[in-house]
Protein backbone atom coordinates (compact mmCIF):
# COMPACT_ATOMS: atom_id res chain seq x y z
CA UNK A 1 0.00 0.00 0.00
CA UNK A 2 2.64 2.49 1.01
CA UNK A 3 4.20 2.78 -2.45
CA UNK A 4 0.83 3.91 -3.79
CA UNK A 5 0.72 6.75 -1.31
CA UNK A 6 2.96 9.19 -3.12
CA UNK A 7 2.17 9.06 -6.81
CA UNK A 8 3.68 12.43 -7.53
CA UNK A 9 5.66 14.11 -4.77
CA UNK A 10 5.57 17.51 -6.46
CA UNK A 11 1.77 17.45 -6.15
CA UNK A 12 2.57 17.89 -2.47
CA UNK A 13 5.30 20.49 -2.55
CA UNK A 14 3.80 22.67 -5.26
CA UNK A 15 0.22 21.73 -6.03
CA UNK A 16 -0.11 24.60 -8.51
CA UNK A 17 2.62 23.21 -10.77
CA UNK A 18 1.06 19.87 -11.70
CA UNK A 19 -1.98 19.06 -13.87
CA UNK A 20 -5.22 19.00 -11.87
CA UNK A 21 -5.56 15.33 -12.69
CA UNK A 22 -2.53 14.59 -10.52
CA UNK A 23 -3.95 16.10 -7.37
CA UNK A 24 -5.37 13.52 -4.99
CA UNK A 25 -6.22 14.76 -1.52
CA UNK A 26 -7.32 11.29 -0.46
CA UNK A 27 -3.63 10.44 -0.04
CA UNK A 28 -2.71 10.35 3.66
CA UNK A 29 0.69 11.90 2.97
CA UNK A 30 -1.06 15.13 2.03
CA UNK A 31 -2.37 15.59 5.56
CA UNK A 32 0.54 14.01 7.35
CA UNK A 33 2.73 16.75 5.89
CA UNK A 34 0.02 19.43 6.31
CA UNK A 35 0.05 20.29 2.59
CA UNK A 36 -3.72 20.10 2.04
CA UNK A 37 -4.68 23.77 2.03
CA UNK A 38 -3.02 24.75 -1.24
CA UNK A 39 -4.50 21.72 -2.96
CA UNK A 40 -7.96 22.72 -1.83
CA UNK A 41 -7.39 26.40 -2.66
CA UNK A 42 -6.66 25.33 -6.19
CA UNK A 43 -9.62 22.95 -6.43
CA UNK A 44 -12.02 25.58 -5.07
CA UNK A 45 -10.72 28.09 -7.55
CA UNK A 46 -10.36 25.96 -10.68
CA UNK A 47 -12.76 23.05 -10.35
CA UNK A 48 -14.84 23.04 -7.17
CA UNK A 49 -16.71 19.87 -8.15
CA UNK A 50 -13.81 17.80 -9.40
CA UNK A 51 -13.67 14.23 -10.62
CA UNK A 52 -10.50 12.34 -9.70
CA UNK A 53 -10.14 9.50 -12.11
CA UNK A 54 -7.32 7.97 -10.17
CA UNK A 55 -7.83 8.31 -6.47
CA UNK A 56 -5.93 6.18 -4.01
CA UNK A 57 -9.22 4.41 -3.28
CA UNK A 58 -10.55 4.54 -6.83
CA UNK A 59 -12.32 7.31 -8.73
CA UNK A 60 -14.26 9.90 -6.72
CA UNK A 61 -15.56 13.45 -6.74
CA UNK A 62 -14.08 16.18 -4.55
CA UNK A 63 -16.65 18.71 -3.36
CA UNK A 64 -14.72 21.65 -2.00
CA UNK A 65 -17.01 24.68 -1.64
CA UNK A 66 -19.05 25.36 1.49
CA UNK A 67 -22.42 25.74 -0.21
CA UNK A 68 -22.05 22.68 -2.44
CA UNK A 69 -21.16 20.62 0.62
CA UNK A 70 -24.24 21.92 2.42
CA UNK A 71 -26.40 21.02 -0.59
CA UNK A 72 -25.17 17.44 -0.63
CA UNK A 73 -25.21 16.99 3.13
CA UNK A 74 -28.90 17.99 3.20
CA UNK A 75 -29.85 15.70 0.35
CA UNK A 76 -29.69 12.31 2.03
CA UNK A 77 -32.25 10.91 -0.41
CA UNK A 78 -29.95 11.19 -3.39
CA UNK A 79 -26.63 10.97 -1.54
CA UNK A 80 -26.48 7.86 0.54
CA UNK A 81 -24.30 6.97 3.52
CA UNK A 82 -25.18 3.32 3.22
CA UNK A 83 -22.02 2.30 1.35
CA UNK A 84 -19.82 3.87 4.02
CA UNK A 85 -18.54 7.30 5.00
CA UNK A 86 -14.90 6.86 4.01
CA UNK A 87 -13.55 6.49 0.49
CA UNK A 88 -11.98 3.08 0.95
CA UNK A 89 -14.26 0.16 0.20
CA UNK A 90 -15.60 -1.92 3.02
CA UNK A 91 -14.47 -5.49 3.51
CA UNK A 92 -17.41 -7.75 2.76
CA UNK A 93 -16.23 -10.35 5.25
CA UNK A 94 -15.86 -7.95 8.17
CA UNK A 95 -18.49 -5.25 8.27
CA UNK A 96 -19.37 -3.38 11.41
CA UNK A 97 -22.65 -1.64 10.54
CA UNK A 98 -23.64 1.45 12.47
CA UNK A 99 -26.00 4.32 11.99
CA UNK A 100 -23.50 6.85 10.67
CA UNK A 101 -23.38 4.62 7.59
CA UNK A 102 -27.08 3.92 7.31
CA UNK A 103 -29.89 5.72 5.55
CA UNK A 104 -33.38 6.31 6.93
CA UNK A 105 -35.44 4.70 8.28
CA UNK A 106 -32.91 2.49 10.08
CA UNK A 107 -30.58 5.38 10.77
CA UNK A 108 -33.28 7.37 12.55
CA UNK A 109 -34.39 4.48 14.74
CA UNK A 110 -30.88 3.67 15.92
CA UNK A 111 -29.82 7.25 16.41
CA UNK A 112 -32.88 7.92 18.52
CA UNK A 113 -32.12 4.91 20.69
CA UNK A 114 -28.78 6.34 21.83
CA UNK A 115 -29.05 10.08 21.41
CA UNK A 116 -30.38 10.49 24.94
CA UNK A 117 -26.89 9.85 26.25
CA UNK A 118 -25.81 13.25 24.96
CA UNK A 119 -29.11 15.05 25.60
CA UNK A 120 -28.68 18.41 27.32
CA UNK A 121 -29.95 17.10 30.66
CA UNK A 122 -27.37 14.35 30.63
CA UNK A 123 -24.62 16.75 29.64
CA UNK A 124 -25.51 18.89 32.63
CA UNK A 125 -25.03 15.82 34.83
CA UNK A 126 -21.73 14.99 33.19
CA UNK A 127 -20.34 18.51 33.42
CA UNK A 128 -19.06 18.43 37.02
CA UNK A 129 -17.54 14.97 36.49
CA UNK A 130 -15.70 16.02 33.35
CA UNK A 131 -14.56 19.27 34.95
CA UNK A 132 -13.15 17.41 37.93
CA UNK A 133 -11.39 14.93 35.68
CA UNK A 134 -9.90 17.73 33.61
CA UNK A 135 -8.73 19.47 36.78
CA UNK A 136 -7.07 16.28 38.04
CA UNK A 137 -5.24 15.76 34.78
CA UNK A 138 -3.99 19.36 34.68
CA UNK A 139 -2.88 19.22 38.31
CA UNK A 140 -0.73 16.19 37.56
CA UNK A 141 1.30 17.90 34.82
CA UNK A 142 4.93 18.96 35.30
CA UNK A 143 5.72 22.69 35.29
CA UNK A 144 8.74 23.89 33.33
CA UNK A 145 9.47 20.52 31.78
CA UNK A 146 8.98 19.35 28.21
CA UNK A 147 6.27 16.72 27.66
CA UNK A 148 3.87 15.45 24.96
CA UNK A 149 0.56 17.31 25.33
CA UNK A 150 -1.24 14.80 23.10
CA UNK A 151 -0.68 11.84 25.35
CA UNK A 152 -0.76 13.56 28.72
CA UNK A 153 -3.85 15.69 28.17
CA UNK A 154 -5.72 15.22 24.88
CA UNK A 155 -5.79 11.42 24.90
CA UNK A 156 -6.23 11.14 28.63
CA UNK A 157 -9.15 13.54 28.91
CA UNK A 158 -11.12 12.19 25.94
CA UNK A 159 -10.54 8.65 27.16
CA UNK A 160 -11.89 9.54 30.59
CA UNK A 161 -14.88 11.18 28.96
CA UNK A 162 -15.60 8.01 26.99
CA UNK A 163 -15.25 5.92 30.12
CA UNK A 164 -17.91 8.20 31.64
CA UNK A 165 -20.26 7.74 28.67
CA UNK A 166 -20.01 3.95 28.77
CA UNK A 167 -19.56 3.67 32.53
CA UNK A 168 -16.46 1.71 31.49
CA UNK A 169 -14.12 0.25 34.14
CA UNK A 170 -11.86 3.22 34.83
CA UNK A 171 -8.61 1.28 35.25
CA UNK A 172 -9.05 -0.30 31.80
CA UNK A 173 -9.82 2.97 30.06
CA UNK A 174 -6.74 3.04 27.83
CA UNK A 175 -8.17 0.01 26.06
CA UNK A 176 -10.72 2.45 24.62
CA UNK A 177 -7.93 4.57 23.18
CA UNK A 178 -6.25 1.51 21.76
CA UNK A 179 -9.41 0.22 20.09
CA UNK A 180 -10.18 3.64 18.72
CA UNK A 181 -6.71 4.02 17.24
CA UNK A 182 -6.83 0.52 15.75
CA UNK A 183 -10.29 1.11 14.28
CA UNK A 184 -9.18 4.11 12.24
CA UNK A 185 -5.63 3.23 11.21
CA UNK A 186 -6.06 0.24 8.89
CA UNK A 187 -3.69 -0.13 5.96
CA UNK A 188 -6.80 -0.53 3.80
CA UNK A 189 -7.71 3.05 4.67
CA UNK A 190 -4.15 4.22 4.01
CA UNK A 191 -3.02 3.93 7.63
CA UNK A 192 -0.14 2.05 9.27
CA UNK A 193 -2.00 -0.86 10.94
CA UNK A 194 -2.15 -4.31 9.27
CA UNK A 195 -5.79 -5.20 8.67
CA UNK A 196 -5.48 -8.48 10.57
CA UNK A 197 -4.30 -6.64 13.69
CA UNK A 198 -7.19 -4.25 13.37
CA UNK A 199 -9.72 -7.05 13.23
CA UNK A 200 -8.18 -8.80 16.21
CA UNK A 201 -8.33 -5.62 18.26
CA UNK A 202 -11.95 -4.98 17.33
CA UNK A 203 -13.00 -8.50 18.22
CA UNK A 204 -11.31 -8.08 21.58
CA UNK A 205 -13.29 -4.86 21.97
CA UNK A 206 -16.54 -6.66 21.13
CA UNK A 207 -15.85 -9.42 23.60
CA UNK A 208 -15.15 -6.95 26.38
CA UNK A 209 -18.29 -4.96 25.69
CA UNK A 210 -20.42 -8.08 25.39
CA UNK A 211 -19.55 -8.84 28.99
CA UNK A 212 -20.64 -5.36 30.03
CA UNK A 213 -23.84 -5.71 28.01
CA UNK A 214 -24.79 -9.01 29.66
CA UNK A 215 -24.13 -7.58 33.09
CA UNK A 216 -26.38 -4.61 32.42
CA UNK A 217 -29.26 -6.30 30.63
CA UNK A 218 -32.50 -5.80 32.50
CA UNK A 219 -30.92 -3.23 34.80
CA UNK A 220 -32.41 0.22 34.42
CA UNK A 221 -29.63 2.79 34.09
CA UNK A 222 -29.75 4.84 37.25
CA UNK A 223 -28.81 8.21 35.96
CA UNK A 224 -29.12 7.46 32.29
CA UNK A 225 -25.62 8.46 31.36
CA UNK A 226 -24.56 4.94 30.55
CA UNK A 227 -24.78 4.09 26.89
CA UNK A 228 -24.47 0.33 27.19
CA UNK A 229 -27.41 0.02 29.56
CA UNK A 230 -29.33 2.23 27.20
CA UNK A 231 -28.71 0.01 24.19
CA UNK A 232 -29.19 -3.23 26.12
CA UNK A 233 -32.57 -2.11 27.42
CA UNK A 234 -34.06 -0.18 24.51
CA UNK A 235 -36.49 -2.28 22.43
CA UNK A 236 -35.07 -0.76 19.23
CA UNK A 237 -31.52 -1.85 19.94
CA UNK A 238 -31.65 -4.76 22.37
CA UNK A 239 -31.76 -7.39 19.63
CA UNK A 240 -28.87 -5.94 17.69
CA UNK A 241 -26.54 -8.54 16.22
CA UNK A 242 -22.97 -8.63 17.55
CA UNK A 243 -21.31 -6.97 14.56
CA UNK A 244 -23.86 -4.20 14.68
CA UNK A 245 -23.26 -3.73 18.41
CA UNK A 246 -19.56 -3.56 17.63
CA UNK A 247 -20.26 -1.10 14.84
CA UNK A 248 -22.16 1.24 17.11
CA UNK A 249 -19.53 0.97 19.83
CA UNK A 250 -16.80 1.85 17.38
CA UNK A 251 -18.89 4.75 16.13
CA UNK A 252 -19.11 6.24 19.59
CA UNK A 253 -15.56 5.36 20.59
CA UNK A 254 -14.09 6.84 17.43
CA UNK A 255 -16.65 9.65 17.13
CA UNK A 256 -16.02 10.80 20.64
CA UNK A 257 -12.32 10.19 20.77
CA UNK A 258 -10.08 11.17 17.88
CA UNK A 259 -12.11 14.21 17.02
CA UNK A 260 -12.17 15.83 20.43
CA UNK A 261 -8.60 14.74 21.13
CA UNK A 262 -7.30 16.51 18.08
CA UNK A 263 -9.31 19.63 18.81
CA UNK A 264 -7.73 19.78 22.26
CA UNK A 265 -4.28 19.59 20.73
CA UNK A 266 -5.16 21.89 17.86
CA UNK A 267 -6.27 24.64 20.24
CA UNK A 268 -2.88 24.76 21.96
CA UNK A 269 -1.10 24.83 18.62
CA UNK A 270 -3.28 27.57 17.11
CA UNK A 271 -2.96 29.83 20.15
CA UNK A 272 0.81 29.48 19.91
CA UNK A 273 0.77 30.28 16.22
CA UNK A 274 -1.38 33.34 16.98
CA UNK A 275 0.01 35.00 20.11
CA UNK A 276 -2.32 37.98 19.68
CA UNK A 277 -5.28 35.63 20.05
CA UNK A 278 -3.70 33.98 23.10
CA UNK A 279 -3.29 37.41 24.70
CA UNK A 280 -6.89 38.30 23.87
CA UNK A 281 -8.09 35.09 25.49
CA UNK A 282 -6.11 35.66 28.67
CA UNK A 283 -7.44 39.20 28.92
CA UNK A 284 -11.02 37.96 28.52
CA UNK A 285 -11.64 34.29 29.39
CA UNK A 286 -15.31 34.64 28.44
CA UNK A 287 -14.10 34.36 24.85
CA UNK A 288 -13.75 30.62 25.44
CA UNK A 289 -17.37 30.30 24.28
CA UNK A 290 -16.61 31.54 20.79
CA UNK A 291 -13.06 30.17 20.71
CA UNK A 292 -14.23 26.57 21.07
CA UNK A 293 -16.20 26.41 17.80
CA UNK A 294 -13.40 28.34 16.09
CA UNK A 295 -10.89 25.68 17.18
CA UNK A 296 -13.19 23.02 15.79
CA UNK A 297 -13.55 24.86 12.48
CA UNK A 298 -9.85 25.54 12.17
CA UNK A 299 -8.88 21.98 13.02
CA UNK A 300 -11.67 20.21 11.11
CA UNK A 301 -10.90 16.92 12.89
CA UNK A 302 -12.70 14.84 10.24
CA UNK A 303 -11.54 16.16 6.89
CA UNK A 304 -14.42 14.77 4.85
CA UNK A 305 -17.42 12.51 4.80
CA UNK A 306 -18.19 10.30 1.85
CA UNK A 307 -21.53 9.93 0.11
CA UNK A 308 -22.59 7.71 -2.79
CA UNK A 309 -24.97 9.03 -5.46
CA UNK A 310 -28.17 7.01 -5.77
CA UNK A 311 -29.09 8.65 -9.09
CA UNK A 312 -27.56 11.01 -11.66
CA UNK A 313 -27.31 14.51 -10.17
CA UNK A 314 -26.32 17.84 -11.75
CA UNK A 315 -24.08 19.94 -9.53
CA UNK A 316 -22.28 23.11 -10.60
CA UNK A 317 -22.50 22.10 -14.24
CA UNK A 318 -21.16 18.60 -13.68
CA UNK A 319 -23.07 15.35 -13.85
CA UNK A 320 -22.45 13.08 -10.92
CA UNK A 321 -23.41 9.60 -12.04
CA UNK A 322 -25.42 7.11 -10.10
CA UNK A 323 -23.03 5.01 -8.04
CA UNK A 324 -20.24 7.61 -7.96
CA UNK A 325 -18.40 8.27 -4.72
CA UNK A 326 -18.09 11.82 -3.38
CA UNK A 327 -15.92 13.33 -0.68
CA UNK A 328 -17.46 16.40 0.95
CA UNK A 329 -14.25 18.07 2.03
CA UNK A 330 -15.32 19.87 5.18
CA UNK A 331 -11.76 21.03 5.68
CA UNK A 332 -11.94 22.89 2.38
CA UNK A 333 -15.44 24.30 2.87
CA UNK A 334 -14.28 25.62 6.24
CA UNK A 335 -11.71 27.72 4.38
CA UNK A 336 -14.09 28.96 1.68
CA UNK A 337 -13.71 32.74 1.47
CA UNK A 338 -17.14 33.14 -0.09
CA UNK A 339 -18.79 32.05 3.14
CA UNK A 340 -16.27 32.62 5.92
CA UNK A 341 -14.51 35.92 6.35
CA UNK A 342 -10.71 35.69 6.51
CA UNK A 343 -11.05 31.91 6.58
CA UNK A 344 -7.35 31.21 6.96
CA UNK A 345 -7.10 33.27 10.13
CA UNK A 346 -7.71 31.84 13.58
CA UNK A 347 -9.99 34.41 15.23
CA UNK A 348 -11.37 33.53 18.65
CA UNK A 349 -14.13 36.15 18.70
CA UNK A 350 -15.91 35.59 15.41
CA UNK A 351 -19.52 36.82 15.25
CA UNK A 352 -20.96 33.54 14.03
CA UNK A 353 -18.45 30.91 15.10
CA UNK A 354 -20.71 27.86 14.84
CA UNK A 355 -21.31 28.40 11.16
CA UNK A 356 -18.73 25.82 10.09
CA UNK A 357 -18.88 22.37 8.54
CA UNK A 358 -16.82 20.33 11.00
CA UNK A 359 -19.88 18.57 12.46
CA UNK A 360 -21.60 18.07 9.11
CA UNK A 361 -25.20 19.11 8.51
CA UNK A 362 -28.46 17.30 7.85
CA UNK A 363 -29.70 14.11 9.43
CA UNK A 364 -26.19 12.80 10.18
CA UNK A 365 -25.06 16.00 11.87
CA UNK A 366 -22.76 15.07 14.71
CA UNK A 367 -24.70 13.69 17.62
CA UNK A 368 -21.95 14.60 20.07
CA UNK A 369 -21.35 18.19 18.99
CA UNK A 370 -22.47 19.80 22.24
CA UNK A 371 -20.56 17.24 24.29
CA UNK A 372 -17.41 17.95 22.31
CA UNK A 373 -17.83 21.68 22.81
CA UNK A 374 -18.47 21.22 26.49
CA UNK A 375 -15.27 19.23 26.99
CA UNK A 376 -13.20 21.86 25.25
CA UNK A 377 -14.86 24.66 27.19
CA UNK A 378 -14.31 22.99 30.56
CA UNK A 379 -10.72 22.19 29.73
CA UNK A 380 -9.90 25.74 28.70
CA UNK A 381 -11.63 27.18 31.75
CA UNK A 382 -9.47 24.98 33.96
CA UNK A 383 -6.32 25.74 31.95
CA UNK A 384 -6.73 29.50 32.27
CA UNK A 385 -7.12 29.36 36.05
CA UNK A 386 -3.91 27.36 36.39
CA UNK A 387 -1.26 28.24 33.84
CA UNK A 388 0.13 31.46 32.52
CA UNK A 389 1.15 29.98 29.22
CA UNK A 390 1.34 26.63 27.43
CA UNK A 391 4.39 26.98 25.22
CA UNK A 392 4.74 24.78 22.15
CA UNK A 393 8.45 23.92 21.93
CA UNK A 394 8.67 21.79 18.78
CA UNK A 395 6.91 20.80 15.60
CA UNK A 396 3.75 18.72 15.90
CA UNK A 397 3.80 15.20 14.56
CA UNK A 398 0.73 14.43 12.45
CA UNK A 399 -1.08 11.15 11.91
CA UNK A 400 -1.06 9.26 8.62
CA UNK A 401 -4.65 9.60 7.48
CA UNK A 402 -6.67 11.58 4.98
CA UNK A 403 -9.84 11.20 7.06
CA UNK A 404 -8.78 11.95 10.63
CA UNK A 405 -6.77 15.15 10.84
CA UNK A 406 -4.77 14.63 13.96
CA UNK A 407 -1.58 14.73 15.98
CA UNK A 408 0.48 12.10 17.73
CA UNK A 409 2.93 14.50 19.38
CA UNK A 410 2.96 18.12 20.44
CA UNK A 411 5.88 18.99 22.71
CA UNK A 412 5.05 21.73 25.24
CA UNK A 413 6.35 23.40 28.38
CA UNK A 414 3.94 24.76 30.97
CA UNK A 415 4.54 28.09 32.63
CA UNK A 416 2.99 28.61 36.05
CA UNK A 417 0.80 31.60 36.80
Amino acid at each position, binding site marked *: MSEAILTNPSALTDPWSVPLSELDPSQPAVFQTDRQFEIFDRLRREDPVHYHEQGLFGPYWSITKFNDIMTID*KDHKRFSSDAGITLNERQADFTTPNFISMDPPKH*DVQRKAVTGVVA*PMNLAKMEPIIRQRAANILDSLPIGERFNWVDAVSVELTTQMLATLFDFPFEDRRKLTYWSDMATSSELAGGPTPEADRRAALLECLEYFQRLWVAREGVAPEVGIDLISMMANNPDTQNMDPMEYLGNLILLIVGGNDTTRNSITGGVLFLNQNPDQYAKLKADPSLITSMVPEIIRYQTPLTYMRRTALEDVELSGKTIKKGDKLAMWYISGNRDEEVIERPNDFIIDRANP*RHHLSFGFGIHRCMGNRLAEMQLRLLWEEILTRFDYIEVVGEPERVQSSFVRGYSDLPVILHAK
Partner: protein
Amino acid sequence: MPSVKFIEHNGTEHVIDGNNGDSLMVIATSNLVPGIDADCGGECSCATCHILVDDAWVGKLAPATETEESMLDLNPDREPNSRLSCQIPMSDELDGIVVNLPEFQY
Protein backbone atom coordinates in the same frame (compact mmCIF):
# COMPACT_ATOMS: atom_id res chain seq x y z
CA MET B 1 -45.19 45.30 10.70
CA PRO B 2 -46.45 42.02 12.15
CA SER B 3 -45.09 41.08 15.54
CA VAL B 4 -44.06 37.87 17.24
CA LYS B 5 -43.82 37.02 20.92
CA PHE B 6 -40.88 34.81 21.93
CA ILE B 7 -41.11 33.33 25.42
CA GLU B 8 -37.82 32.10 26.84
CA HIS B 9 -37.73 28.92 28.89
CA ASN B 10 -37.46 31.01 32.06
CA GLY B 11 -40.59 32.96 31.13
CA THR B 12 -38.96 36.14 29.84
CA GLU B 13 -41.02 37.55 26.97
CA HIS B 14 -39.79 39.41 23.89
CA VAL B 15 -42.32 41.03 21.58
CA ILE B 16 -40.63 41.92 18.30
CA ASP B 17 -41.75 43.41 15.02
CA GLY B 18 -40.52 41.53 11.99
CA ASN B 19 -40.45 42.07 8.24
CA ASN B 20 -42.77 39.97 6.15
CA GLY B 21 -40.76 37.13 4.64
CA ASP B 22 -38.08 37.06 7.33
CA SER B 23 -38.07 33.76 9.19
CA LEU B 24 -38.83 33.64 12.90
CA MET B 25 -35.24 32.45 13.34
CA VAL B 26 -33.86 35.56 11.63
CA ILE B 27 -36.16 37.81 13.63
CA ALA B 28 -35.04 36.22 16.90
CA THR B 29 -31.33 36.14 16.20
CA SER B 30 -31.15 39.62 14.72
CA ASN B 31 -32.85 40.98 17.85
CA LEU B 32 -30.61 39.07 20.26
CA VAL B 33 -33.36 36.88 21.65
CA PRO B 34 -31.42 34.16 23.48
CA GLY B 35 -32.26 30.48 23.06
CA ILE B 36 -31.94 30.00 19.32
CA ASP B 37 -28.55 28.87 18.02
CA ALA B 38 -29.24 28.42 14.30
CA ASP B 39 -25.88 26.79 13.58
CA CYS B 40 -26.65 26.22 9.89
CA GLY B 41 -27.88 29.75 9.29
CA GLY B 42 -31.37 28.80 8.14
CA GLU B 43 -30.64 25.83 5.87
CA CYS B 44 -33.00 23.47 7.69
CA SER B 45 -30.06 21.22 8.40
CA CYS B 46 -29.07 21.63 12.07
CA ALA B 47 -32.30 21.77 14.09
CA THR B 48 -30.80 24.23 16.58
CA CYS B 49 -33.57 26.76 15.89
CA HIS B 50 -36.20 24.55 17.53
CA ILE B 51 -39.31 26.30 18.89
CA LEU B 52 -42.60 25.21 20.42
CA VAL B 53 -45.46 27.02 18.76
CA ASP B 54 -48.36 28.11 20.95
CA ASP B 55 -51.26 25.72 20.34
CA ALA B 56 -53.55 28.51 19.17
CA TRP B 57 -51.16 29.21 16.29
CA VAL B 58 -50.06 25.74 15.20
CA GLY B 59 -52.93 25.35 12.73
CA LYS B 60 -52.17 28.66 11.02
CA LEU B 61 -48.74 27.53 9.84
CA ALA B 62 -47.94 25.79 6.60
CA PRO B 63 -47.16 22.17 7.45
CA ALA B 64 -43.53 21.16 7.87
CA THR B 65 -41.76 19.98 4.72
CA GLU B 66 -40.26 16.53 4.56
CA THR B 67 -36.80 17.97 5.22
CA GLU B 68 -38.01 19.82 8.30
CA GLU B 69 -39.76 16.66 9.47
CA SER B 70 -36.59 14.61 9.17
CA MET B 71 -34.57 17.17 11.15
CA LEU B 72 -37.22 17.59 13.86
CA ASP B 73 -37.42 13.87 14.19
CA LEU B 74 -33.82 13.63 15.39
CA ASN B 75 -34.76 15.49 18.54
CA PRO B 76 -35.85 13.17 21.35
CA ASP B 77 -37.53 16.15 23.05
CA ARG B 78 -39.75 16.76 20.06
CA GLU B 79 -43.35 17.77 20.91
CA PRO B 80 -46.43 17.82 18.68
CA ASN B 81 -46.03 21.62 18.38
CA SER B 82 -42.29 21.53 17.63
CA ARG B 83 -41.12 23.44 14.56
CA LEU B 84 -37.89 24.82 13.17
CA SER B 85 -38.09 28.59 13.31
CA CYS B 86 -35.97 29.07 10.17
CA GLN B 87 -38.75 27.42 8.19
CA ILE B 88 -41.50 29.83 9.26
CA PRO B 89 -41.61 33.08 7.30
CA MET B 90 -43.32 36.06 8.94
CA SER B 91 -46.56 37.25 7.33
CA ASP B 92 -49.55 39.45 8.17
CA GLU B 93 -51.57 36.33 8.96
CA LEU B 94 -49.08 35.48 11.68
CA ASP B 95 -49.25 38.90 13.35
CA GLY B 96 -49.22 38.25 17.10
CA ILE B 97 -47.93 34.66 16.94
CA VAL B 98 -46.63 33.27 20.22
CA VAL B 99 -43.73 30.80 20.34
CA ASN B 100 -41.94 29.19 23.26
CA LEU B 101 -38.21 28.50 23.31
CA PRO B 102 -36.99 25.14 24.61
CA GLU B 103 -34.56 24.93 27.52
CA PHE B 104 -31.72 23.77 25.26
CA GLN B 105 -30.86 23.51 21.59
CA TYR B 106 -28.93 20.52 20.28
